[in-house]
């Protein structure tokens, strides 16, 4: 008799679909997975509805992969629902892990975000004052949409998470390795960050590293970079030294600096603070005025430091964004 198939769900919160594409990018492995697993719920590809998930017994799913951040009340409802239905609940990708790019919105208030989207931009209907409302009466009845929260949350702010798979998106080989580990019952202790390396991106980057002393910082477009040499040493801010590897060094290898999507290395609590510390440490000067002038060339340091992890930062909001 065939063994019971694994019961699996995949879902997206405030996400882009890139994590789902990363699952598709495992190519023919999807067919192997389908041989041992029933995909019960996966909105991008399968026709299961919320009511089907609600009808499941608690713990009926062996595995639920949740990608995306928690931006609204629907994201929250599904995070809570799938957590309850799943024996193993995984935060897949950077948004679920740390808030991701949508988490950059924590630098602005809900009112500011609505204003830019619905009240003040060049293509709006002139004179518009309408805003989306959680409940709205129409002649035939009442329509509802989820509540847009005041801030973006990472997944484990809302529900307990068993494993984290970092990456924006996670490299398909890493997704495959994690799924295989689940199938084979070969997972580490709960709470682990999986599908990545314990090294830093720098450790896996082939660029030559000499002395990190910088007299001037450059933005990527301002200089033709030497493809053989460490980007940070060339004055181009790169988060490779504070970022966990496992991505395949795909940004530095394509001539662009790392922005940190795989999250902090194992023993770092705050990835952005670590990057700010690293950048400040390599300034080649002892003169406070010169230091201020060199660092003054770096615009939007928060946007480099917390590109993918504002909701996971120690200090999460700016004044006026609350």
């Amino acid at each position, binding site marked *: 008799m065939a063994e019971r198939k694994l019961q699996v769900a995949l879902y997206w919160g405030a996400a882009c679909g890139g994590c789902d594409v990363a699952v598709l*990018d495992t190519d023919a492995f999807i*067919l192997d997975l389908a041989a041992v697993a029933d995909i019960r719920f996966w*909105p991008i590809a399968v*026709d299961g509805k919320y009511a089907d998930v609600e009808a499941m017994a608690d713990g009926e799913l062996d595995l639920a992969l949740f990608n995306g951040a928690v931006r609204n009340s629907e994201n929250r409802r599904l995070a809570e629902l799938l957590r309850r239905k799943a024996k193993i609940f995984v935060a897949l990708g950077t948004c679920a892990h740390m808030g991701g790019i949508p988490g950059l919105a924590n630098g602005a208030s809900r009112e500011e975000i609505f204003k830019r989207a619905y009240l003040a931009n060049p293509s709006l*209907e002139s004179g518009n004052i309408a805003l989306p409302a959680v409940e709205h009466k129409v002649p035939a009845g009442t329509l509802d949409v989820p509540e847009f929260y005041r801030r973006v949350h990472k997944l484990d702010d809302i529900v307990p998470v068993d494993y984290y798979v970092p990456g924006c998106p996670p490299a398909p080989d890493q997704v495959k390795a994690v799924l295989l580990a689940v199938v084979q019952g070969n997972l580490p202790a709960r709470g682990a960050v999986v599908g990545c390396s314990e090294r830093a991106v720098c*450790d896996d980057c082939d660029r030559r590293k000499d002395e990190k002393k910088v007299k001037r910082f450059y933005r*990527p477009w301002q200089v033709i970079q030497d493809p053989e040499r460490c980007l940070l040493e060339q004055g181009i801010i790169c988060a490779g030294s504070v970022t966990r590897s496992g991505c395949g060094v795909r940004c530095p290898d394509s*001539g662009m600096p790392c922005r940190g999507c795989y999250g902090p290395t194992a023993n770092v609590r705050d990835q952005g603070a670590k990057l700010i510390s690293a950048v400040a440490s390599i300034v080649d000067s002892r003169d406070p005025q010169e*230091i201020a002038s060199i660092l003054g060339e770096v615009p*939007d340091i928060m946007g480099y430091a917390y590109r993918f992890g504002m909701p996971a930062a120690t200090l999460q909001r700016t004044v006026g964004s609350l």
Partner: protein
Amino acid sequence: MSRTIQIDPITRLEGHGKITIFLDDQGAVEDCYFQIPELRGFERFVEGRPIEELPRIVTRICGVCPASHHMASAKAVDACFGGQVAPLAHKLRDMYYHAHYIHSHIAHFYALAAPDFVCGPGCDPAQRNILGVVAKVGLEIGGQVIASRSKAQRIQAILGGRTTHLVWCLPGGVSKGLTTDELAEIRPLVGELYDFTQFSLQLFRDVILGNPEYVELILNGPYTLDVHNMGLVDQNNAVNFYDGQVRVVDFEGREICRYSPAEYATHIAEHVEPWTYLKFPYLRQRGWQGFREGLDTSLYTATPLSRLNVADRMATPQAQAAREEMFSTLGGRPCRALLAAHWARLVEMVQNAEMLKRYCDDPEITGPEYRLIPDRITGEGVGIVEAMRGTLTHHYTCDQNGICTGANLIVGTTNNNAAIHMVTKKVASTMIRPGVEPDNGVLNLIEMAFRSFDPCFSCATHSLPGRMPLIVTLMQGGEVVRTFRRDPS
């Protein structure tokens, strides 16, 4: 008794959405709404960021078509730098973009749309997916589909270093060029992809055109709208995905307007409804007139079918032949049968493959001059490309240091929001009959309306020398309370 049916979430698409149907006492459709439950607020949170970072932030609007956002953003940023770009970079970006189209169109046609036709609209929902398609067509064809999408992804990885969420474009060009070794790896993949586009067209003829019920559903079902068409065209009015002018043509074939990217706000405006987070674009000159069809409507679609409707021709010969076959079968151009977008997608893939071949044979493509350093910041730019799911507009402003001061985006699918809302209601009203409980197959026929649009709702610790010099200023109410400092070691 009156009641409400919800299809929640709608499935086999990119992003979130739900359909709310109100039935009257007799069980007929009284009203129907297509609602988008989410907003992420990119336009606000890119403000204050270095403008060159935007192409690698906005990719996260959509993980299925990240290159569309990357390219539109790169072009808007180019314009903020006075349009200074190495000419070779445009070729390389366009080449990448054709491979991106093939990946996305394969994913949509086979994984998202085909289950409705290959398995059938009323098939068991647990089987109505790509695995059900593979079960029907066999592992050999299924494997070929998966391998073909993978080849398209591989071409992108070779060219730009990454597939999903590429980081390749920057002011002045692209961050890496194409080597002759890399080109040698791409060339055979392109030939295989071209063959796959022909295979896909044949599959469409066999499975869909070979079934009179499907042909009837496409041509005479409720899946039609009297609204206009939008798409990018080149100077010969041929379909172009990466560059050109936006042309809007009415559903009888007359040109309504034609504009360059910088003029978009003169021609397009967006209406807000309180029951959805997604706005409704319309033709500004005609004004918002509600959800209305007809020759004087201000509403339009921007889909693969719209692109073929607005363009006078395809840019390559075999794609042109496929286009002629499509329009002659469907009764001429323009075509209002929205489900024909699935066919148009396959016609476009032929152009994508032929263009890739053309670039492989271009002696300049492996050249070294793929980037220049711009020498001025002009401060404002609009970039438009055709995303797979519709015309995509990014409009940015920046200050003299190249820091973003404003961003406005009109995303491919957003263009189609009004049309999707209207056709969903039309199909629901036709398919749901008083006194007959709508079954799963009926609800799926309603979902097939939005699916034709292929919507995308989402659009170390290695040691460092020295010690960090630090000044911390504590402020309260605008007053400095205390300053701490630590000097460098």
